[in-house]
């Protein structure tokens, strides 16, 4: 494979930013954000340069690697710190650095009044570096470093305002639930090494054909667990909603556009594993399908704009996971949806941030309304993102989501119908809840207090929003033009098997659009045409209660894990004190006790001593006698 010594700069630039901003401390307060933004942009430039280089090579020699140094080498366990840039990673690199840079720019203004802005930018740069390492690592172990690195950055950023206890808890929750996923990745690496003797992508790919299906299934399931944790998929989805505690740009970058999609990356990157493990692959699709509905349902009931968007993210990633679970036919579309989603969801989050910026950080949509007039740019950019996500042609989401639904339906048999049907249903629900967000925020009558002074955000904020909005509009078309993106990625994957088309593409599109129309219509009827309370009504269906409480995800986690865990902890603390240490102390007490009672034999009377001697003499004689006989 071609080596390229320039890859390291992709990571080194933002890493340098993070480290220097953190080490310099307050000294860098004045210019830290500028440095961070510049470095992120620099990394983007390097990415573009690499892309141009890559485009200039023929298909076979497009992937390039760079070995930095030998990282871990013990016995047959050899892992180099080396980077791999291929068609898949470059897509991510550009998304991460591109969207990342925009969000850096946005944040300069958004965080302008925060005393800790420098620290915020340091974290952002740290995140960019870790995320780039995640997508550039050439082995599972290198990926793991980035994987936990983004987890750390996410933790730091969610808890950026950790002086609020709830935010601190949210960050911890995110990290811990991510760690459960990471555990899956650990298992996967262990299995790979134990069964295949290698942990690099190329090595595993090479050995995959020799491996038993059971091994590959185990490996696949472990990778899936990892993906589920990082991408907030069912059943490890509960942290994402709480993660909205972080500043909004963070939600846009990490919890919408990039980090949460790492699970999709992992599964697509491990295509050779899942291709060799059909059962694991099916499980991937099922998890994706469950989550896309799950997230969508939660989204229908959320009044907090960021949480609604978070639920939507969960659901959209469900689509991607579903796509990744469809095998070679779906990988490219999953990634494509990931990229278009990166644009429109980041854009919408930034839009939400802009709304909050103008509304004194109010997040409750029931306290919004009629903001269209006050923030026209935000309305337009948000609206374009909205059209993209619900899949209205020719906006970006239409292409990517439509292809996913189509591929799902074509997956064959009952599986295809169920998965495709779910995806279709999801499209409808998505349309409903996103329309609800639009209406509640922008078009319904105003419900805010008079002391609110909604206003449009400064240029530094809306320009990134606008750029992302442009992406939401055209990215789908561009990527799908002549199936360009599919062909771009194709060399990395196995050839998809032939599937008969269940329905012609045009019919699928029609169905999807019908679902979308129904969803939009219901939302319009419910929220635009009828009065909306500024406080959440209580006389709602059981289901709404359910959905408001995230379908009881926290309650279930608490009942299944947290409370038993706490019980185990307190029980063990007691056991440690009373049983184990008690036993030790007991032995001590026993020695002291027997000492004290034996001590009583020393009565002080000569006669009893003499008696003791006499008894001893008798015993001694008896003992010698017995032995002699």
């Amino acid at each position: 494979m071609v080596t390229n010594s320039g890859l390291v700069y992709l990571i080194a630039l933002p890493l340098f930013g993070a480290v220097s901003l953190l080490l310099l401390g307050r000294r860098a307060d004045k210019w830290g954000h500028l440095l961070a933004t510049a470095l992120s942009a620099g990394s983007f430039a390097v990415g573009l340069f690499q892309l141009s280089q890559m485009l200039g090579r023929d298909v076979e020699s497009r992937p390039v690697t760079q070995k930095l140094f030998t990282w871990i080498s013990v016995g047959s366990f050899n892992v180099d710190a080396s980077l791999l840039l291929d068609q898949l990673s470059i897509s991510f690199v550009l998304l991460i650095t591109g969207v990342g840079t925009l969000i850096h720019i946005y944040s300069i203004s958004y965080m302008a009044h925060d005393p800790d802005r420098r620290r915020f930018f340091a974290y952002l740069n740290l995140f960019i570096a870790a995320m780039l390492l995640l997508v550039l690592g050439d082995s599972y172990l290198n990926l793991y470093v980035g994987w936990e690195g983004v987890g750390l950055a996410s933790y730091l950023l969610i808890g950026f305002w950790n002086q609020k206890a709830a935010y601190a808890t949210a960050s911890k929750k995110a990290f811990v639930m991510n760690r459960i996923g990471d555990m899956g990745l650990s298992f996967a690496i262990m299995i790979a090494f134990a069964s295949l003797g290698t942990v690099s992508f190329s090595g595993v790919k090479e050995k995959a054909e020799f491996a038993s299906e059971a091994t590959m299934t185990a490996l696949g399931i472990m990778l899936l667990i990892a993906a589920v944790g990082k991408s907030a998929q069912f059943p490890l989805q509960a942290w994402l909603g709480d993660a909205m505690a972080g500043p909004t740009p963070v939600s846009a970058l990490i919890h919408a556009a990039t980090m949460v999609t790492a699970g999709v990356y992992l599964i697509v990157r491990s295509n050779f594993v899942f291709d060799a493990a059909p059962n694991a692959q099916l499980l991937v699709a099922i998890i994706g399908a469950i989550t896309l509905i799950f997230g969508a349902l939660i989204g229908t009931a959320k009044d907090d704009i960021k949480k609604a968007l978070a639920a939507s993210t969960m659901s959209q990633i469900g689509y991607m996971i579903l796509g990744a679970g469809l095998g070679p036919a779906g990988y490219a579309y999953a990634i494509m949806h990931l990229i278009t989603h990166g644009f429109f969801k980041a854009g919408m989050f930034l839009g939400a941030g802009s709304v909050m910026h103008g509304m004194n950080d109010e997040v409750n949509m029931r306290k919004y309304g009629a903001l269209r007039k006050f923030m026209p740019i935000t309305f337009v950019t948000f609206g374009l993102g909205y059209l993209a996500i619900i899949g209205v042609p020719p906006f970006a989401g239409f292409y990517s989501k439509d292809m996913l639904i189509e591929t799902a339906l074509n997956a064959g048999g009952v599986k295809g119908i169920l998965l495709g049907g779910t995806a279709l249903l999801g499209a409808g629900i998505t349309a409903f809840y996103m329309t609800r967000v639009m209406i509640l925020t922008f078009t319904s009558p105003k419900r805010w207090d008079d002391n609110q002074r909604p206003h449009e955000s400064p240029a530094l904020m809306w320009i990134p929003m606008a750029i992302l909005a442009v992406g939401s509009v055209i990215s789908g078309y561009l990527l799908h033009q002549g199936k360009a993106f599919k062909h771009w990625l194709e060399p990395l994957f196995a050839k998809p098997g032939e599937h008969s088309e269940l329905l012609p593409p045009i019919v699928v599109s029609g169905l999807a659009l019908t679902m979308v129309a129904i969803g939009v219509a219901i939302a319009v009827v419910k929220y635009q045409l009828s009065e909306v309370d500024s406080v959440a009504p209580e006389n709602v269906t059981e289901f709404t209660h359910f959905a408001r409480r995230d379908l009881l995800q926290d309650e279930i986690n608490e009942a299944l894990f947290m409370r038993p865990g706490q019980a185990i902890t307190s029980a063990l603390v007691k056991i440690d004190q009373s049983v184990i240490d008690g036993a030790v102390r007991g032995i001590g007490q026993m020695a002291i006790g027997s000492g004290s009672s034996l001590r009583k034999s020393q009565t002080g009377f000569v006669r009893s001593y003499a008696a003791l001697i006499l008894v001893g003499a008798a015993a001694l004689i008896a003992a010698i006698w017995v032995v002699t006989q």
Partner: protein
Amino acid sequence: MNLANMNWLTLSMLLPLLGTAALAFIPKGNVLLTKQIALATTVLVAVVGILMTINFDFNTPGFQFVESRPWIPAFGINYALGVDGIALVLILMSVLLTPIVVIAGWNESEGGRWSAKTFYSLILVLETMMIGVFASTDVFLFYVFFEAMLVPVYFLIGGFGSGERAAAAVKFLLYSLFGGLLMLASIVGIFVMSTRYGNRTFDITTLAGLHTVITPMMENVLFLGFFIAFAIKAPLWPMHTWLPDAAKSATPGTSVLLLGVLDKVGTFGMIRYCLTLFPEASKTFTPLIITLAVISILYGAFLAIGAKDIKRLIAYTSISHFGFITMGIFAMTTQGLSGATLYMFNHGFSTAALFLVAGFMILRRKSSTISDFGGLQRVTPIMAWSFFIAGLSSLALPGLSSFVSEFLVLVGTFTRYPVAAVIATFGIVLAALYILIPVQRALHGPTTPGNENLPDLTLREKVAIAPVIAIIVALGFYPSPLLNIINPAATTVISQQGFTDPAPTNSEGK
């Protein structure tokens, strides 16, 4: 002068003693000079340790810097020193940690019962013994250091600690003595057996052949004597209850040496003595030991989660970590063993960081209860960051040193004992909890009353903690220098055991 043939080990053991002797001539009132001499000595020893590492030939297996003089020839006892990669790494860790402890605990001697002179004399004597215990290649000499080093630690805890220091010191000493006496029984056994089957010797290389002549039953019994002593020291569940008490009562610096270095003698002993001398018995007991190790990992983690006192918490995390180390050792794979050795080194530094920063925090707040802290990140950012990074190292975040070792242990164990490795991996989730819970309580959240005016780290404290963090980060990305030292030794030990690493199960053919 031929550097390779120098008596490096004796030199490094002699220096602290000379420092102690120098301390004896200093007037009691001159505390500053006392500290300066102690610091200069420990720094000098650290330099010697580094030079020694540089002069170590990575590619040669077996002992280097070998010295041997008859000590008690009547019993075949020699003053025999030598290091392989494993011992060298641990000596390096010890000599690096000691000056850091001296700097960080610059004022630790002042809360004690006795003068600073006593404090630093004890530290220096302890340093000599720490080097000796790792450098001995004579079983008897090892035992002498193993037991004798209890005494300075005992006085350090009991004389300079806080709270129930006397009780904790006694508990520590009694536990250790109990184990040590069982080991003495085994050493007597070895002595008698080696006399019976050939020549009276305590030379570890010669004794490595002893297991071929004694009965399996005898081997098992002798093994247990050693192992229990080491398991108490390490400490392995359920022989751990002395550690939280001792760590809570000792000064932070002492705790660093206690958990960072002394307890490593336990795990080091498992490699050097249990595995080498009793390979068959080690195999017999491996299932039991791996089970105990896995229990330790989870148990320590749960108790750390439940701990209310920050020092106890760190102690419990260490129990969990020692579980990993023990598991790695008995996995009998090169990854497991190298990982465990590297883990010992890394744990030394990550625990040092945790304890030292915790010490700084406690010093300021006059309390070690976690709930007394709150919102420190905004009051004392540097201190908070130091604690946070130390915590991340403890939870084995990739990119920090402990990740490499923990992962090697897990991978190494998985190839032979997948179930144990899988259960142990759950420890990493618990690790996230036991670190992030105190981080949240102490560093995050609103600044609680009593914490508003705490001062941030002083220059001295920064100087102490910076190298520790630097090592943690540097070794996370680039552990090769250490692994290059450790690997040949680990490979030797594994092959002596008659083990080879399991081949990949699915590497060829269906």
